[in-house]
Each structure stands twice: as C-alpha cells, then as structure tokens.
C-alpha cells in the first residue's frame, strides 16, 4: 500500500514538474523544447503510474500489462513515423 505521505509528496512533485514544463515552454531553446517537454510529460506519467496507480506495489503482471500497452503504441507510432520520414521519390521528377 502507498502511504498518504507518499501520495501527497507525489502530488507536489507533479506540480513542480508542471511548473517546470510551463516555464521551459516560455524560453526558446530551439530543437530542445520538444524533447524536454516530452521528457517531463513522461516523467509525470511514470510518477502517476507508479504511485497513484500503485503499480510500484502491485504484482509483476500488472506492471507488465501497463508496459505492454505503451510498448505496443510505440510500435505503431514508430512504424508510421519511420515510413513518413523515409519516403523519397524513387524516380527523379
């Protein structure tokens, strides 16, 4: 079971991460804006999953199920994205 202290601490950390991502968005960091925003979003999601959804104290099967879902989405997104990025004209125009 996750203790009340950990839940509240998690909430505070999440709000700090929110402030961070909001602040970073106001600063022009060129190509780094997107990766930083995504990294912070992933961090928030992981914290919610581990502590609010109690995956950290759940059986391995639950952890595996959660991971599978996101992994499969990655397969879809990567498959589409790599196609889009590598479309070249085979014959010269």
């Amino acid at each position, binding site marked *: 079971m996750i203790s009340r202290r950990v839940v509240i601490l998690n909430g505070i950390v*999440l709000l700090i991460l929110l402030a961070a991502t909001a602040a970073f968005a106001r600063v022009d960091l060129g190509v780094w804006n997107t990766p930083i925003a995504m990294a912070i*979003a992933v961090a928030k999601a992981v914290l919610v999953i581990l502590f609010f959804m109690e995956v950290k104290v759940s059986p391995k099967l639950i952890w595996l199920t959660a991971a599978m879902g996101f992994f499969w989405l990655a397969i879809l997104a990567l498959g589409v994205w790599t196609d889009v990025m590598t479309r070249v004209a085979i014959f010269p125009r």
Partner: protein
Amino acid sequence: MRDGVVAHQFDDLEQQNEADRLGMWVFLITEVLFFGGMFTAYIEYRTIHPQAFSIASHHLDYWMGTINTALLLVSSMTMALAVHGAQRGKRWISALFLFCTIVLGLGFLGVKFWEYAKHINEGLVPGRGFKYMGPYAREVELFMSFYFLMTGMHALHMTIGVCVVTVMLLLTLAGKITRVYHSPIVIAGLYWHFVDIVWIFLYPCFYLIGGPK
C-alpha cells in the same frame, strides 16, 4: 458483484480483487491504444508541418491549459487519497476526497468548455466556420481538427470519469465500501488516473509547442 460478497465464479475475495484489478488494467491498455491512434496521427503531422503547428499552438490559451493541467494533477492526488482512505475503512475521509475529485474534474470541464466557446467565437472550428486566414491556414485547420478531436475525446472520458466517481461517492456514503470490500474505488481510481495521464501528454502536444509568442 454484490456488496461485499464474492461473486459465484470466484473462489474467494482475493481472487475477485485481483481479477478486477487486472481487468481494469487490460481495459486501460485498450484506451492507451485508442488514444494512441490519434497521437500517432498527430506525430506524423507535427513532423511534416512544424511551422504550421507552432503558429496554431499560439492560438490556444497557455494559461487555461496550464491551470487545467494543475487541476487534473491535484484531482489525481485527491483520488489517490480517497482510495487510500477507503482501503483503511475511513468512510468520511474517502468521501471528502472523492467529492474534491469531482469538483476538480468539473472545474476542468468548465475551463475546457469556456475555451471551446472562445474558439467558436474566434472562428477556429474546422470545417465551414473556419476563419483563420494567416500563413499555413490549411495546416492550422488540421491542427485545430486534432485539437478538437483529441481534447474532445478526452473531455468525453473525463465526463464518464466524473460520473463514475460520483457513483463511487454515493456507494461510499451508503456504506457499501469497506476496509474489506473496496475494489470498486480502486478500479475507479485507475480509470481516473489514466484520463489524467492522457491529459499530461495532450498539454505539451497542443499548448506548449512553438516557444514563446
């Protein structure tokens, strides 16, 4: 599943609780793939239309988006606290936090609809009413299509979530949730947290691209 009693297909309460939890998680991964289809499409279009998406993002209200994210993060915390209380049999604490969660959720929906109304007034709804005429107008309309589709789908799930948590509140007030039998609140919590996670990704995807205005 009747109040506190083990359903006939299960051998004991522990098996029922484990089945409920696994069942909700399997359902949540179907939701990951469901929203994921839209995120996949979004990723393609953001990759091939970076400037248009940047311009379009500036038409969204950064502060409303940030406030909404804060509301949802806090609501996840209150939901976790409600589950925590239910697991320990603390009926009134659990009910209080469920109520907070509902209020925060309704607050989110309120802000969202206010934003939508603003977009309608500004002529940013894709289709025949679209009035934006600046650079990359067509791709900006594509961005707005995704904005309405994805945040709309999210808002629909939020609404369902608010209804589910309301039912949980009623069950708690009626004394049906106990230290022994609190599985419904746990799985309602899982659903709520998932809807929060979707928003955690929607927020930077729509509100935070393109740097400062």
